[in-house]
């Protein structure tokens, strides 16, 4: 059996999963664990596998291409202004004659960097808020969930704009802060739900019975078991954050030049869409591909890591 090292069990989880029966009585025991099962379930979903591969390819392109590209992403050459796709410039050039393929890779670093940065922040806030609410329970839980309900439906864009305005100059990090502040609600709710379900498990009661302190119960038995839903949450939140950044940049309230994200590049192409539609199309398609892949990966992961949700 091929074991992907990334899927190797972390000790905390292996301990819990070892209690599960593996294989029918009498049959030779097939070694099985949560992550290997998840991988098997995931790889059965062809759309998710394809989407995952494209996602990884896109990530590699963004990370590696700027190093191997023969062009400088900032080199301006008006002789090459707004050229369509050609052999030497597969994605064409932009209004300043810069190679769009290189710029897409460089801009992708900014977009994906903001995307992953904000997603990470969302997970941190979500885990903190959700686990406190779910773990403490009672009145506090009630109040915290009410607050969440209040914030949940609010239109996030105006608030994100206000947060960026507070910082004045919009940079990579202000963008991360603005986007994560307005979109951590779903993850907090997911984590809280998970903690509440897990709290009822016998092993938690057992841990309590042998005198484990609350932080040990939370850190050792509850939080590690939310890892599955957190991995799903990454791919649920990523599209929204990346799109949010793109929209802010597109309406002219994004990070300040000379840094370029995909949304900024699309904004650059807006004025020239009649003569050179590829300038707006290339970064937009990059965003669409990323979002499409993330959606399918999230679907696949949900079936793989959280099969219970399928039964309802």
């Amino acid at each position, binding site marked *: 059996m091929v074991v992907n090292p990334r899927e190797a069990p972390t000790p905390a989880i292996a301990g819990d999963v070892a209690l599960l029966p593996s294989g029918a009585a009498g049959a030779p025991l097939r070694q099985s664990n949560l992550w290997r099962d998840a991988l098997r379930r995931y790889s059965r979903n062809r759309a998710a596998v394809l989407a995952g591969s494209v996602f990884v390819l896109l990530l590699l392109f963004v990370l590696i291409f700027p190093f191997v590209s023969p062009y400088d992403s900032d080199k301006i050459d008006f002789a090459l202004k707004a050229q369509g796709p050609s052999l030497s410039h597969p994605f064409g050039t932009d209004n300043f004659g810069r190679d769009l393929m290189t710029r897409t890779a460089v801009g992708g670093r900014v977009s994906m960097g903001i995307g992953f940065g904000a997603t990470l922040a969302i997970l941190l806030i979500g885990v903190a808020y959700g686990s406190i609410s779910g773990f403490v329970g009672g009145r506090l839980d009630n109040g915290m969930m009410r*607050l969440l309900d*209040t914030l949940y*439906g*609010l*239109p*996030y*864009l*105006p*608030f994100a*704009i*206000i*947060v960026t*305005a*507070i910082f*004045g100059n919009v940079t990579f990090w202000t963008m991360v802060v603005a986007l994560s502040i307005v979109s951590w609600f779903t993850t907090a709710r997911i984590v809280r739900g998970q903690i509440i379900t897990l709290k009822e498990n016998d092993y938690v009661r057992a841990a309590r019975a042998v005198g484990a302190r609350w932080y040990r119960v939370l850190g050792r038995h509850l939080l590690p078991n939310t890892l599955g839903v957190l991995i799903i949450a990454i791919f649920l939140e990523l*599209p929204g954050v990346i*799109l949010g950044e*793109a*929209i802010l940049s*597109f*309406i*002219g*309230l994004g990070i300040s030049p000379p840094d370029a994200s995909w949304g900024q590049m*699309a904004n650059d192409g*807006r004025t020239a*869409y*009649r003569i050179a*539609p590829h300038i*707006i*199309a290339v970064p*937009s*398609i990059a*965003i*669409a*591909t990323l*979002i*499409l892949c993330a*959606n*399918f990966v999230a679907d696949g992961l949900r079936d793989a890591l959280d099969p219970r949700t399928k039964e309802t």
Partner: protein
Amino acid sequence: MGTFIIRRIVWTIPVILLVIFMTFVLMRQIAGNPFRTSERNVPEEIQRNLERKFGLDKPWYIQYVTYVKNVATFDLGPSLVLRNRDVNDIVREHFPRSLELGGLAFLFAFVVGILVGALSGLRANSALDYGAMFLSNVGYALPSFLVATLFIYFFALEWDLGFPTSGWTTWQSKVLPVIALGLAPMAAFARLVRGTMLETLQQDYIRTAKAKGLRWRRVVGLHVLRNSLIPVITAAGPTLGFLITGSFVIEQIFAIPGIGRYYVTAVTARDYSVVMGLTVLLAIIVILANLFVDIMYGILDPRTRDARA
């Protein structure tokens, strides 16, 4: 039922107060006061008079209470940049267009989305289903600015179908922005309806209905569709958020003088009272829409009444 509705309405009041408070706190964090901008050199006395005129010399909680009182009487305050206009004027002028754009886009998303989703659900795993779901997934992922630009490029310019590239006057000028704005929510509705359809089709009462000899068309109309549509109502709340976000982009691209476009202008001009007023307005609209959705949901599905009140 009556108490449920009343409790739900009463609960909305602190929610609105909280949202105004949050907006208020956030706006105060924006550096400096609107009159003390570095570009303008205002004498000290005039500065103080201006602050007194707009109540900026009072402590923050007094300002907050005043603001809430004003909002309660539908007064969103003056514009700091356009001296002869207040936020109400701006809302009155720009909001109807945004409302029409959003309303038509919602209608498009709702009708087409349910139609596509229901057909896909009934013919699950057919070519039609795969095609529709592929398009829905793509439609859901495409950024609205790409959709809008492609619409203008092909429908208005390349093929010259008689649609103007911008504005909000004739019905022709409204077709492209409405569809561009409604596409992503339409795709979301279609996926949701298909999912709930498939679930409903598995239910025992559908089998019973079929077994007692009810014609299939009646089973679908009477049992499947009705029960599948209840979850769709919950999706209406988030859809509104979608539409508001989308309108910022769509109004910009199609040069529609609506609230979304004006909001961006106000942020760039640092007209903070307008930004604040419009934010509060949008938030209250969303809160009231959620109130409506919850009440509808409570009427349609009695089990949720206690939990959601």
